[in-house]
């Protein structure tokens, strides 16, 4: 371990020699709400030396002494200029005012710094506030579905909120909510994501060139920051939609010192469908709902210390209660809970510390039965973690981040119990799987020259599967012939590895730059999936004796350019990615197969790779904003035990993927939004031949994913009407009429999903039509489509 500190030390010494500079540091906040602003630019007007605020709205900038102008600039806000004469370190708090003109800008990329300035590539930001003006399925604003519109991000079929970044699997996305890992980000079998946009401040997606700060996943990071809550006054917002309602309340705990936000959402599909279910019928007692609650509080203890407590709790519940004896009944609840407690401390203008304590829990369970037969299935994962992250601004050319992260994981593999009458089946409760995961990281964003800036990072990660654990000794047919017990804390298998992360930017003109990156990522958890649509039965499993850590290797180069006075941003990125030690269930494995054997007994191992080119053009400013993204890519998998060892396209392999997103502010009251997507049909496996056994038709299937379904394309439209922002008030005594701003504001969003009613394929199946007796029996192929044209209306309000 001490060798590692040596490496850290080496990095530390470069260029840290004190120079004749002073530090300007502080926070950038929204003047109206007191929310800190993430990614706001702060720079010296004369030298253009600048930086951007971090996740907590903090910045630190090293400048030469003397008179100069420090500017805070952030899209959607008025620039704030401060003339200073720098003679010592200085603290400035910027209270940014929203621009008076029309609405807030639709901001997607480059908030961190100008598109062409940052060393990071493959980074995308989404402005949450504009999401509600875009069309959404059944009016449910969905962060993850908006992410699917970005180049390099594929969706998983109709209505699904799962996302796949540059050919990586769904488990390779690190989804963080206020620094806590969210393991299953979907509700209703993937149709809706768990993030309630009302409670979210900032969304950042990192597709490639992942900084060393992040780890534990092979493909991408989706970093979501919750709002802190308004610390100026009590405010609320909410909405009533077709299938759910939302309400958020925020306000000061102590004015200007602390605030809270509480946000809740619940669907009412169950309430809506209940009257239509025959009370005598087989489905009389069935119901489905989900809800989630986000809560956060923060308190500024001193100018140097700030404390945050945030939590998320969400559950899906699906029930079926048969009304007659003998009919089946079951109850399936599942969901996430996360808690993170964070403490920010500013040691001095040049050193910022964030410490986070994390709890995350995902649970799935199924309890059901019919007559005397009872069946139960459960699985889950629980994390306890601690992160200590330093940001240091030692020199005008260096911005350092380093820290350590630790998580204790407790995995519950598929646990089955079965009873038939009084007989309880002899299925052991499998051991929970315990594991330590730790990492040390260091990164330096270093401006080598005015043209060349590099981000050098390295991460050292460690993972150990430890007892208590019961290992089954299996015979050739997979039957248990004995067990081996491991004591609590006893190491069963461990892994460690170095993860270099390098990216560089070279400026080639006033408005253009070339960037390149390489990263190696180790991922110690795997999601073993039974279905292709991300069902809650998917099980998280750790690396261990037979399951090796996933390795992601990504190489990317890109050209970035700002056009027309930075009104437009454009980029082209090309990437190649290798994914090693991928897992799948062996063909034919069922969720209930897991009893009396090791958690890895049904897994097969292989590799994947992906390469592609992404084109992106965005209009950032003006009444009309939006973007066009196009991706050409190829994503393959190869498993010795799947598809006879031949390579096959991954299910989320899309040769072409085009997205167009636009938003137009007509005036202060009307905003229009439209989206269009086109993508190559999903790869699927279909039968090519058939034969007869015992008088039934047996299908002989093609190569894995050997067919393409029809291409997917869809257009959605939305129109939002706000009430008048002001009203006339007549003073009774003077008779004078004045215009005042309304305190209560509301809006209607009318949307149409699938506007030209395209019957997009959801899946294909083969069946027969006709009857043998009628002599017209024939095999047919059928396509199932989910959503035809679907209008929706949502009413939103805030005060």
């Amino acid at each position: 371990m001490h060798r590692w500190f040596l490496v850290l030390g080496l990095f530390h010494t470069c260029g840290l020699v004190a120079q004749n500079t002073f530090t300007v540091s502080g926070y950038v906040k929204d003047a109206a709400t007191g929310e800190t602003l993430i990614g706001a630019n702060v720079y010296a007007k004369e030298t253009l030396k600048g930086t951007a605020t971090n996740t907590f709205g903090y910045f630190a900038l090293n400048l030469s002494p003397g008179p100069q102008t420090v500017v805070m600039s952030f899209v959607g806000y008025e620039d704030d200029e401060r003339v200073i004469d720098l003679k010592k370190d200085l603290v400035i708090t910027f209270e940014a005012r929203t621009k008076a003109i029309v609405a807030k800008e639709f901001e997607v990329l480059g908030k961190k710094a100008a598109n062409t300035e940052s060393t990071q590539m493959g980074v995308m930001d989404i402005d949450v506030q504009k999401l509600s003006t875009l069309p959404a399925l059944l009016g449910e604003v969905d962060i993850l579905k908006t992410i699917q519109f970005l180049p390099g991000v594929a969706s998983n079929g109709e209505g699904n909120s799962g996302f796949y970044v540059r050919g990586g699997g769904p488990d390779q996305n690190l989804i963080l909510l206020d620094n806590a890992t969210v393991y299953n980000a979907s509700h209703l079998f993937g149709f809706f994501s768990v993030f309630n946009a009302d409670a979210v401040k900032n969304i950042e997606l990192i597709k490639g060139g992942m900084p060393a700060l992040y780890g534990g996943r092979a493909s991408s990071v989706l970093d979501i920051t919750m709002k802190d809550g308004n610390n100026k006054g009590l405010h609320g917002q909410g909405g009533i939609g077709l299938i759910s309602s939302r309400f958020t309340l925020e306000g000061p705990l102590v004015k200007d010192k602390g605030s809270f936000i509480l946000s809740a959402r619940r669907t009412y599909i169950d309430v809506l469908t209940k009257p239509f279910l025959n009370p005598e019928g087989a489905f009389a007692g069935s119901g489905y709902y989900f809800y989630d609650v986000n809560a956060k509080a923060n308190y500024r203890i001193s100018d140097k210390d700030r404390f945050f407590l945030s939590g998320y709790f969400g559950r899906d519940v699906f029930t079926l209660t048969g009304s007659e004896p003998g009919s089946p009944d079951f109850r399936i609840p599942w969901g996430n809970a996360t808690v993170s407690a964070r403490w920010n401390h500013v040691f001095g203008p040049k050193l910022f510390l964030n410490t986070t304590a994390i709890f995350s829990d995902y649970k799935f369970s199924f309890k059901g039965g019919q007559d005397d037969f009872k069946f139960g299935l459960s699985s889950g994962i629980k994390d306890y973690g601690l992160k200590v992250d330093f940001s240091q601004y030692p020199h005008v050319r260096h911005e350092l981040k380093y820290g350590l992260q630790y998580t204790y994981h407790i995995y519950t593999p598929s646990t089955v119990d079965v009873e038939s009458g009084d007989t309880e089946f002899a299925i052991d409760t499998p051991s929970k799987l315990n594991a330590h995961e730790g990492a040390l990281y260091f990164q330096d964003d270093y401006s080598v020259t005015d043209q060349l800036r590099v981000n050098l990072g390295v991460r050292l990660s460690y993972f150990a599967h430890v007892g208590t654990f019961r290992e089954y000794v299996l015979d050739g047919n997979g039957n248990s012939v004995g067990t081996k017990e491991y004591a609590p804390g006893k190491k069963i298998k461990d892994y460690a590895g170095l993860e270099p992360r390098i990216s560089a930017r070279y400026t080639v003109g006033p408005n253009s730059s070339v960037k390149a990156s390489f990263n190696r990522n180790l991922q110690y958890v795997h999601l073993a999936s039974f279905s292709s649509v991300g069902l809650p039965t998917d099980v998280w499993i750790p690396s261990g004796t037979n399951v090796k850590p996933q390795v992601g290797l990504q190489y990317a180069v890109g050209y970035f350019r700002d056009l027309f006075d930075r009104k437009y941003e454009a980029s082209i990125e090309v990437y190649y990615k290798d994914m090693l030690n991928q897992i799948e269930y062996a063909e034919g494995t069922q969720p209930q197969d897991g009893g009396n054997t090791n958690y890895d007994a049904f897994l097969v191992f292989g590799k994947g790779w992906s390469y592609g080119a992404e084109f992106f053009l965005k209009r950032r400013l003006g009444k009309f904003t939006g973007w066009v993204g196009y991706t050409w890519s190829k994503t393959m998998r190869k498993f010795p035990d799947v598809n006879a060892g031949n390579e096959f396209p991954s299910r989320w392999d899309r040769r072409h993927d085009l997205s167009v997103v636009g938003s137009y502010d007509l005036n202060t009251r009307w905003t229009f939004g439209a989206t269009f997507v086109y993508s190559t049909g999903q790869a699927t496996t279909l039968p090519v031949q058939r034969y007869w056994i015992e008088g039934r038709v047996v299908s002989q299937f093609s190569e894995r994913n050997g067919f393409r379904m029809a291409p997917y394309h869809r257009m959605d439209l939305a129109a939002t009407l706000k009430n008048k922002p002001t009203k006339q008030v007549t003073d009774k005594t003077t008779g004078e009429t004045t215009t005042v701003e309304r305190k209560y504001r509301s809006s209607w969003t009318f949307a149409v999903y699938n506007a030209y009613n395209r019957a997009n394929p959801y899946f294909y199946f083969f069946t027969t039509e006709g009857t043998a007796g009628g002599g017209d029996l024939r095999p047919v192929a059928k396509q199932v489509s989910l959503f035809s044209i679907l209008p929706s209306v949502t009413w939103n309000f805030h005060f």
Partner: protein
Amino acid sequence: MKRLLPLFAIALLAGCEKEITVDLPDTPEQLVVEGTIEPGLPPFVILTRTQSYFEPLDLTSIANSFVRNAIVTVDNGNGPVQLDQVCSGSDLSPEEIALAAELTGLDPTLLAAVQVCIYTTTNTAVFGEVGRTYSLRVEAEDKVLTSVTTIPNPVPLDSVWFKLALQRPNDDSLGYAWGRLSDPDTMGNHYRWMARRISHRANGSVEDPTFISPLGNTFEDKFVNGLTFDFSFIRGRQFYSDQPEDNNEETGFFKLGDTIAVKFVSLGYNEHEFYTSYDENVGSSGDLFGTPVNAKSNIDGGLGIWAGWGVYPDTIICQ
């Protein structure tokens, strides 16, 4: 608005279906074995070939799938015995057709309508015996197929009975077949339930001409080793049956008055692997909730199954 809301909820859950055309590639046809051997009976081998998925399902097409003039031998260790080709057709009497259906599991309508050939023998030297291993060799159309199977010890059911299901209002006649199994104390028993209604219809024909194994009724003792327990079985249905009870609310149920012949079959490991994957293959449609699975054949050089069945027979009178 109030009336509109539920409509959206229903639209969300409904979806829609349409027929499409899929261009299938030309894939080489393979030979398929459906062969069984049980104690006291000769081996029966049905040899067919795979067909393109969209070939019509009419009688001519089905007849064309049967492979004739193959050399099929079975060896129980005492040297190979060649099986005879026996063909059906319009020259057979209804009684002969019924017997052929019962023995081979082939549909009597098919046997009567077209000439289908199977391979079997009257040579008692290769009749099934419990515990014995049988090698199969098939030579046809320039292909050689081989396989080996063993007839396991049959495991008897303690008892079998009929019990009303009471699943619908005012229903007092429909129910399931039940069995009580005491699984032997050694791990590695594999079972398959088959049943056949041998009571007769008003027109004098037997209700089920062949034994039927309902899908999903092949199981192993991994979780029930050494236990005694009860389990229920639904009534299986013949493929594309147009009998009224297979197309109304009686589907899947036995009925008061039925007489059921039960074959409780013990299988080896590979045979169990085949029948479970076969059940899954036949029962699934599309790959939305899982990867499609080909039936796991134990035939080298072809597809299908060569299975020794350790049969425990029993009878239930539904009363």
